[in-house]
């Protein structure tokens, strides 16, 4: 069909698909699912760090943390807007999040146990997110690509802040150093799992990688991104003085990359299926906030409707 033709031409030319362009239904669905999951991750991702806002150990850190959680809300909004250009509205997407039809990144099902976790999330989780997201700035779908450009700029700022939290701790008291090391121990493997299950070699056949690459949504395999991430983080860990919790981690001169151990994929799937430390808590928190606010949103709608009809009356009276 002609839809396919125009679309394929644009994709082949590495041009952007825009909302008014015709696109295959599968492409639209894949994007909705991916953008929504991304938006949900920003919104749910406010909680683990939000847990430390009232307890941040200094006012400067408190201010930075509030601003960061605020940025996450902002990223969620950009992304919901991008998804809305595909013909699905935010309220519907939130419903899908709340009743479990759509997911968010499983990394946010891990708990933030100490202040150092705010550092580890910035350094490792935002670091991994950037690695995933930078290629998305060249995603074939225009609104998503443009949202990602804004998001990436702020994320790299967050990553530096996370690094700096850990840097300060590693130059602090022995207790602070232990706190930073402990956080890195707990977040390293979940961060590696953020790139998704293996999708190269033997594993290349199962997942969505191939189709997403063909559509210009995905630019690198999970495994390539994971390798890039490890290669980037090891020198940073060295600078921090943090020992990454992987005995197999070492430079491989032949490959020109770091070798590293295997993620515990059983744990990954278990947490993804719902049996993580915080899955139930995160969704319950979101749902409660949403339900508590229902009367407020209704009031805002009712008021807007009243105002609109008042305007109309004024106009017809004039």
């Amino acid at each position: 069909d002609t839809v396919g033709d125009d679309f394929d031409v644009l994709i082949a030319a590495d041009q952007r698909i825009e909302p008014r362009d015709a696109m295959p239904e599968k492409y639209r669905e894949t994007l909705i699912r991916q953008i929504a999951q991304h938006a949900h991750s920003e919104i749910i991702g406010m909680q683990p760090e939000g847990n430390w806002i009232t307890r941040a150990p200094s006012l400067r850190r408190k201010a930075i943390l509030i601003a960061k959680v605020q940025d996450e809300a902002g990223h969620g909004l950009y992304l919901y807007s991008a998804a809305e250009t595909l013909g699905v509205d935010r309220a519907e997407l939130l419903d899908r999040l709340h009743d479990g039809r759509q997911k968010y990144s499983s990394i946010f099902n891990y708990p933030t146990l100490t202040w150092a976790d705010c550092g580890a999330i910035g350094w490792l989780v935002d670091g991994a997110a950037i690695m995933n997201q930078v290629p998305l700035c060249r995603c074939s779908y225009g609104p998503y690509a443009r949202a990602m450009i804004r998001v990436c700029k702020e994320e790299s700022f967050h990553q530096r802040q996370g690094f700096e939290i850990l840097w300060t701790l590693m130059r602090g008291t022995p207790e602070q150093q232990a706190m930073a090391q402990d956080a890195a121990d707990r977040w390293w493997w979940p961060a590696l799992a953020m790139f998704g299950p293996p999708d190269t070699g033997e594993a290349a056949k199962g997942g969505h990688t191939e189709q997403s690459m063909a559509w210009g949504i995905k630019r690198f395999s999970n495994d390539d991104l994971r390798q890039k991430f490890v290669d980037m983080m090891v020198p940073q860990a060295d600078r921090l003085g943090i020992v990454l919790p992987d005995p197999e981690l070492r430079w491989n001169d032949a490959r020109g990359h770091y070798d590293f151990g295997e993620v515990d994929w059983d744990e990954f799937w278990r947490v993804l299926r719902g049996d993580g430390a915080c899955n139930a808590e995160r969704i319950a928190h979101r749902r409660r906030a949403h339900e508590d606010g229902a009367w407020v949103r209704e009031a805002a709608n009712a008021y807007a409707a009243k105002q609109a009809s008042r305007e109309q009356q004024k106009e017809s009276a004039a």
Partner: protein
Amino acid sequence: MAHDPAVAEAADSKPCAAYLLGLADDAMVYAQRLAEWMTNAPQIEEDMALGNLALDLLGQARALYPYIGSLDGTGRGEDDFAMQRSERDWRNVHLVEQERGDFADEMARLLWFSAYQVELHTALTGSTDEVVAGVAGKALKEVRYHLDHASLWVVRLGDGTEESHRRMQAALERVQPYLPELFDDDEASVGAAGRGVGVLPSSLRDAAVNRVASVLEQATLSMPEPSKWRSRGGRAGIHSKPMGYLLAELQHIARSYPGAAW
């Protein structure tokens, strides 16, 4: 005896420090409460907006604390004030320390507090103390926005649905006992006003009430009758029950690692 301006200035600075501490603690404690809304607001835009308000107020407190520490001769910095003071040494009014209620409670509190702060900072831009005038000038822009934000919501909720009207009116009743304290003159404010550094809280009352009244009218809400009881004592370090728990949360980590830098 020759007039020594340095000595006179030192004698003057302590009451002003006490006065400014009340303003800084109001901002600090309310920032802590507002920040609790993040992830709990009725919509994502409001998570952001309330976070913004919290940041503004936190900024006001952070601008004042080190200056207070220089005025009172202790040299304390912002974290000394925020993290290392016991409940009896805090000088905020009870209004800001009350637990987070529903969204209507927050908008009632924000409407009154920002109406008060608009009048306060308008007056303080004329302070004889340049630092205070500077902080007030910056804060004024912020708190005008806070007042607009609260007004917008109070009108929406008052003139929204039957439920939102009922909730908003009930919230106005609940906040009522905490309002007179905002406008109480005490020794510190009288001292600071006398020196031209501060302003008498009582002198801000009528204009703040008028601001709120006009919002309530637009919102089809009514101004509650004066309450049977009223809060007292915040400026003297006499706080209400929620304050101790707020401080436990605010200070626990900082207090748990004495001498650590973050």
